[in-house]
């Protein structure tokens, strides 16, 4: 029995089809990431799996239980952290955790060992109202509340959105620790760099899954050599590369432009020469290994041309 399995799930909001026949499975004790831009349908999948929405077609099972027929059972065994902070801002840290513990029929003390690494950081502020916490603190509180009943599956919808870099890093460390407790975690994020923290990822775009694999294997599907190119004028560079006859893909990436070529045996010199011939002075062209973001961009582009 897989903790999470979704088969051909569809969901529409009026005329807009948010999820277009998605299927995936998550093995026990895995940290599974749904990666995709805003509007890809990630939150809809979370809401289906947490029994807040019924799929129009297809089925979704959590811990082997159907999200429509057995929603009551599921709710006892899953933890959910919605994308938007959804705790009581007018209750204190401790009151929030105690309240959620009580509605699950447990207490803070009973499951303290599980939340200890997270909650201990909050304890100095336990009398502070949740509304007065910083973004990172709120996120830790929300995670504590989602964990207080020792769930078997944890759903985290964009937990790191709007959180500073240090807190984000800490947060992923906490997730790895939870994995060791054999909790299955489904997490979504719009940040590609976080995808590499997951055991497996599903790249999502426009209500569909483009690819499911480990982050390493997904980046390996990137066959062509990837080049990072930098010049003084990035805009001009993008224009030049796009009009280059051998160009396969051109993606701005921070101060660099990531570029792939159609030719099999292309050298950095070929690209340099082309740019110099167009009057670019001192271009930097470096061969780099693709990361998941490059893969995602390429898959998205393929999808668009395919359509």
């Amino acid at each position, binding site marked *: 029995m897989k903790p999470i399995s979704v088969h051909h799930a569809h969901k529409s909001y009026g005329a807009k089809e948010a999820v277009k026949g998605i299927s995936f499975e998550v093995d026990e004790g895995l940290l599974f990431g749904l990666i995709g831009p805003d509007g890809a349908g990630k939150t809809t999948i979370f809401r289906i799996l947490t*029994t807040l929405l019924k799929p129009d077609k297809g089925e979704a099972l959590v811990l082997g239980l159907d999200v429509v027929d057995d929603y009551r059972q599921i709710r006892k065994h*899953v933890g959910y952290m*919605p994308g*938007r*902070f*959804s*705790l009581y801002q007018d209750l204190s840290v401790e009151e929030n955790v105690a309240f959620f513990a009580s*509605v*699950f029929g447990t207490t803070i003390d009973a499951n303290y060992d599980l939340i200890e690494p997270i909650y201990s950081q909050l304890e100095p502020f336990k009398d502070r109202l949740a509304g007065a916490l910083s973004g990172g603190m709120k996120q830790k509180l929300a995670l504590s509340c989602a964990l207080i009943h020792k769930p078997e599956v944890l759903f985290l919808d964009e937990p790191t959105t709007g959180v500073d870099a240090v807190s984000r890093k800490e947060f992923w460390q906490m997730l790895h620790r939870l994995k060791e407790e054999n909790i299955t975690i489904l997490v979504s994020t719009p940040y590609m760099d976080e995808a590499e923290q997951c055991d497996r990822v599903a790249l999502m775009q426009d209500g569909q899954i483009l690819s499911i694999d480990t982050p390493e294997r997904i980046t390996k599907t990137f066959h062509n050599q990837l080049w990072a190119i930098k010049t003084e004028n990035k805009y001009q560079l993008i224009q030049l590369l796009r009009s280059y006859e051998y160009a396969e893909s051109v993606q701005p990436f921070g101060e660099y432009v990531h570029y792939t070529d159609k030719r099999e045996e292309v050298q950095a010199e070929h690209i340099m020469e082309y740019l110099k011939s167009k009057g670019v002075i001192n271009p930097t062209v470096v061969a780099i290994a693709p990361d998941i973001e490059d893969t995602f961009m390429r898959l998205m582009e393929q999808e668009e041309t395919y359509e």
Partner: protein
Amino acid sequence: MRTIRFLLQKEFLQIFRNKGMLPIIFLMPVVQLVLLSFAATYEIREVNFHLIDFDQSEASQQLVQKFQATGYFNLQSSSFNVDDGIEKMRSNDVRLALVIPQDFEQRLKLGQFASVQLNIDAVDGTTAGLIQGYGRSIIQDFSSRIRPNVENIKLTNQQGIEVIPASWYNPNLDYIQYMVPGILVVLISMIGMFLSGMNIVREREIGTIEQLNVTPIKRYQFIIGKLLPFWIIALFELGIGLLIAYYGFGVPFVGSAWLLFGIAGIFLLVVQGLGLFISTITDTQQQAMFIAWFLMVVFILMGGLFTPIQSMPVWAQELTIFNPIAHFIEIMRSVMLKGAGWFEVQHLVGLLTVMAVLILPASIFRYRKSTS
């Protein structure tokens, strides 16, 4: 049961922490009753009037003095032209133009029928009615006293029917006694309809409902957790209001308090059901507030609080059967002022019960649908 207890605990914690709301809840009955008793009154004082006395006799002067002596009227000006009086009325200098005809004293002395004219500014119908009432009673009083001075009338034994009015249950026609029960009804309706409905919408507006829905809390537990605190607060408020009315303003309480609180409990279920229903059709507190106010104003205007239901057109009177506030105002007045018992109010309680039985489950049903 345990879950409900935890939900209630949480609600009360939030309510008592809400610094913007809590003082208002307890200040409201005091402010409303104080304002009502000192400011909102139907009594009129010092109404300016214009005098057109064509008679210029002893009798006419006595009548004018009598008008002034009551304290209700104040002689602003006088002339010998009725149009002056009308003009003064138009410019809002006076509200009454009193015209005494030339043969006033003479006719009185001859024992004939004498008349005076009261021209009243009736833009404000209520005030006009009061001026007319006061004026009429002053003139009647005058005519009954003038008789002994008019020697040469043949005192024919005036056969006729004298009407002796006696105001029961409110002997002095005290406005406060009549209004207090109604104001208290509005007070607890506001708590029932606004606060509990608003509280549910708030959970949706700030997104906490999302988190709650993924817990094993059942909907009925959630709804009880939302309605019960304000049910309790509203009854508590009613108690405070009644104490203030009884000890502070001397409003009598003749009937049974148990009966009244029992019925109030049913009435609150009706208004809370309405509040819950509003919460199921709205997404924000603003929308909910707006709809609740709309309903509330209709209920109050047609509920017999300010204007008697008996003076409404027939269609409006028939519509009041759907107005819980009208029924409860009537019950409150009967029980408080008349000491009505179960037998006298049972048909109204029956109506309220039917409403509660219909509205509450309907709202709960709609609540389920709107959130699943």
